[in-house]
């Protein structure tokens, strides 16, 4: 371990990267050097202030020393930089649960579930909600667990006890709110057309694209999405959120949540992707995928 620490120390001097800093923190902690581990986290945050995982590791170190409030502050700081840092919500929930602050712990787990559905989180939530209702029979928590954020196609799997009935519009014509969101996206300057597809690359809804082109965009876009997810796996990049291909004569942008529903946009090459993303995420939200 010492040689690995030394190798990473040299590496971080020459090629400072957030992942190397956090790896150094983990190795120092494993070697029993808690102060050193905390120092690596702080160095990481100085160099990469938006690297959320460093906050989570720092909080873990602080919590291990009994500095509960410091740990919660670190997690809050991490969430401020990266609101989708699901690990921070989970860590905060555990700290709060241990401190007997069950309602706050439950709230954190619910936030984690909104970001990413996870059976472990749901199980923990059931456990905590159960213990809360045990102490307070009238607790409203048990009925307030959010539904799994995967309202795509009807599934044969049994619904989790907390899951709300899945009412998916995807096999039916778009509801008015969804159609409006799609209209707004398609009406943005420089947008040639939009398609919404399912995980299999079938068109759910489309706007502004000629017949045939929407199906090609959805089907081949699904192939690109699968390739993008596989490429991310090799780098530890997590679940796919978006991909884009820019050419001299146009660009294709795709935004997804969990790969179940994807909004695909065909646009002029000069259109700013950030503007498209805002509108596309609205469509995903209206479809219930976000």
């Amino acid at each position: 371990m010492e040689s690995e620490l030394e190798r990473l120390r040299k590496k971080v001097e020459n090629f400072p990267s957030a992942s190397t800093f956090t790896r150094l923190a983990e190795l120092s902690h494993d070697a029993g050097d808690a102060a050193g581990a905390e120092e690596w986290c702080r160095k990481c945050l100085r160099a990469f202030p938006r690297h959320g995982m460093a906050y989570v590791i720092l909080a873990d170190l602080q919590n291990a020393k009994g500095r509960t409030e410091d740990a919660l502050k670190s997690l809050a700081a991490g969430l401020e930089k990266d609101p989708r840092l699901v690990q921070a919500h989970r860590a905060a929930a555990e700290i709060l649960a241990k401190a007997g602050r069950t309602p706050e712990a439950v709230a954190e787990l619910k936030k984690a579930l909104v970001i990413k559905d996870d059976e472990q989180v749901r199980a923990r939530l059931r456990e905590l909600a159960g213990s809360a209702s045990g102490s307070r029979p009238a607790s409203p928590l048990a009925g307030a667990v959010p539904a799994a954020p995967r309202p795509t196609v009807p599934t044969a799997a049994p619904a989790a006890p907390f899951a709300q009935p899945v009412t998916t519009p995807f096999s039916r014509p778009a509801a008015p709110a969804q159609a409006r969101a799609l209209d707004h996206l398609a009406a943005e300057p420089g947008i040639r057309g939009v398609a919404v597809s399912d995980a299999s690359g079938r068109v759910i809804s489309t706007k502004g694209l000629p017949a045939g082109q929407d199906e090609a965009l959805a089907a081949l876009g699904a192939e690109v999405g699968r390739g993008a997810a596989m490429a991310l796996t090799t780098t530890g990049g997590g679940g796919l959120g978006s991909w884009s291909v820019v050419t001299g004569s146009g660009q294709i942008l795709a935004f997804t949540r969990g790969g179940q529903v994807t909004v695909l946009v065909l646009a002029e090459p000069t259109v700013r992707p950030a503007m498209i993303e805002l509108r596309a995420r609205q469509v995903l939200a209206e479809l219930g995928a976000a």
Partner: protein
Amino acid sequence: MIDEILIKLNRVRGVGGAVVLTTDGQVVAGVLRQEVDDARLAAAVGTLLGHAQHLASTLRLAGGGPLHVQGELGGILALPVGKAWLAIVIDPGANLALLQLEARPFTEQLAAAIAL
């Protein structure tokens, strides 16, 4: 020479590693974190580029440009460098627009080095 350019590129904020690959996904050179396998990354990006080019040509979009993939914990930016491609592993929270700007001189250097 290509390695030296990649090492300098790795010093740019937001860059977590980089690999130069052929269009069929073979590694030309790579400077990556220990846990990232350059051959696997190049193969995956090569396949992805193939799918993306197929999609672009089907939609009659000419000219291969940047390809960007964003995940929850980081991303990948693939940029053409001459006849090859440069795949940059992006740290979470990196500023993509700035990174693309800062990567430009490196892609020019790499294209020149590959052409030699």
